[in-house]
């Protein structure tokens, strides 16, 4: 095992240890999607169009995608922005730690938290709203690649956007605003096909819409296709858009990542 990977895994373990010990972070970033699932799952009623699919299951699939974005893009991005602001990044930069180890550590912790978040949402959605795990190996495979592409794209975007806020304090606003808006226009809180077409087009520019759609295709029956605007799961397009965001995010990370505060050059 190379040094960078070994130290990266050690950093991942350390990040997870810090996360678990920070009770507010656990409660807020990890608990928010679960609370949303509970609240809206209890409030919402009925089925999606006349497809026979319980809207609460549609919503649960969306919340799983949203939970991935919460643990990767939002939590990760805010954490990196405050680590830049409080000098943690600068301190690491001053050591011989391989630069890659930092990103490996972040990826390990984001991936672990996303898996845990998804597992909890599955358990809650299953117990209360009858959400079932993927029914066939093909659907498991779909679930797996949508999950991996979604986590990768959101992680890279979280790292890239972490350079935007001027301070650690403004980071929460910079990350939560797009996250909140995307949840409304990507088919999490509302059925995507019910949104005005202009809103649909904006939503389709961003990864969350495609993560939701991919997860629905893995978790919900094909009867739901009648309510999908494209009348198809569009797996090729889901993969393409998410992969494009991964590439774009990677390029942004490599070109814009800073170890120091903005004025420290």
């Amino acid at each position, binding site marked *: 095992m190379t040094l960078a990977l070994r130290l990266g895994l050690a950093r991942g373990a*350390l990040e997870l240890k810090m996360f678990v010990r920070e009770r507010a972070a656990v409660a807020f970033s990890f608990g928010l999607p679960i609370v949303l699932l509970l609240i809206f799952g209890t409030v919402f009623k009925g089925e999606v169009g006349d497809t026979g699919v319980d809207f609460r299951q549609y919503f649960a699939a969306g919340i799983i995608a949203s939970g991935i974005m919460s643990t990767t893009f939002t939590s990760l991005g805010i954490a990196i922005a405050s680590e830049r602001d*409080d*000098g943690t990044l600068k*301190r690491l930069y001053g*050591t*011989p730690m391989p630069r890659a180890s930092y990103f490996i550590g972040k990826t390990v912790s984001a991936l672990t938290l996303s898996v845990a978040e998804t597992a909890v949402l599955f358990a809650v959605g299953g117990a209360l709203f009858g959400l079932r795990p993927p029914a066939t190996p093909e659907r498991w495979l779909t679930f797996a690649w949508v999950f991996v592409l979604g986590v990768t794209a959101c992680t890279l975007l979280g790292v890239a956007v972490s350079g935007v806020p001027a301070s650690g304090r403004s980071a929460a606003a910079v990350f939560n605003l797009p996250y909140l808006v995307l949840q409304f226009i990507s088919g999490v809180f509302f059925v995507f096909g019910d949104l005005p077409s202009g809103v649909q087009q904006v939503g389709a520019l961003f990864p969350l819409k495609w993560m939701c759609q991919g997860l629905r295709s893995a978790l919900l029956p094909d009867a739901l296709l009648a309510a999908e605007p494209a009348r198809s799961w569009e797996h090729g397009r889901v993969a393409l858009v998410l992969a494009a965001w991964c590439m774009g995010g990677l390029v942004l990370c490599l070109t814009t990542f800073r170890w*120091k505060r903005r004025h420290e050059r």
Partner: protein
Amino acid sequence: MARRPRRRDAGGMAETAVRVRGLRKRYGDVDAVNGVDLDVRQGEVFALLGPNGAGKSTAVEILEGHRRRTAGEVSVLGADPARAGRDWRARIGIVPQTSAENPQLTVREMVRHFASYYPRPRDPDEVIEAVGLAEQAGRRVGRLSGGQRRRVDVALGIIGDPELLFLDEPTTGFDPDARRRFWELIQGLAHDGTTILLTTHYLDEAEALADRVGVIAAGRMLAVDTPARLGGRATATARVSWRDPDGPRHIDTASPTQVVAELSAKFGGEVPELAVTRPSLEDVYLEMIGAVR
């Protein structure tokens, strides 16, 4: 503190740990550092003194490889910090101006983790002991006092067994007792042969720790000397002051004894309010930085 002896001059390397010529750092149209020369010998404790905004932290961060310079030559442990890699970073230690975060980790977890970054780290428990945190080793960093946190910073700075240690305003916010104990820690490191480059705006700190001090203000190095000789302090003229019927008087002179004798003759006995004073390090320093304001 048991540790391997430091090689003072490994493989015929230069005796100079830090060599800077004509260092310049420009932000917009302001020169934060404006033509600084600096030599720090191996094993030396060098203090950079200067008011806030004088450019000392900027200069030090260029030496640490944290900032890029606009112009000038810089060699730190024989390498250019702007291009030096991991091997070079393993030989330096940095105690930055702001304290370490990660309040959720214990002192021991943090020091052990940082030890894993270095090829030849010191023993983490020994380092924790050396900075006086043995009793707090299992405590989370977030529950330490400000002075104890600063000791964690020093532990992280020396865990890699550096040849050169940068200390950026290490004792700001310390109480007098904590400062005294911190000085002993630094003196111990210096005694073991670690080269130390320190920035401070406490004159007593520079006087207690440094072999030599450099005074920097408005981006320029105004003087470099031992604390005792800075600004011609040892040979400076003395001031003889007294009161005569017209009010307070003084004479600055190189021969105060003669002046006192003359005054004594003139007054025919006791000279009212007679005092002979020489400039303190603080007087010399304030006069220097006052001249550039």
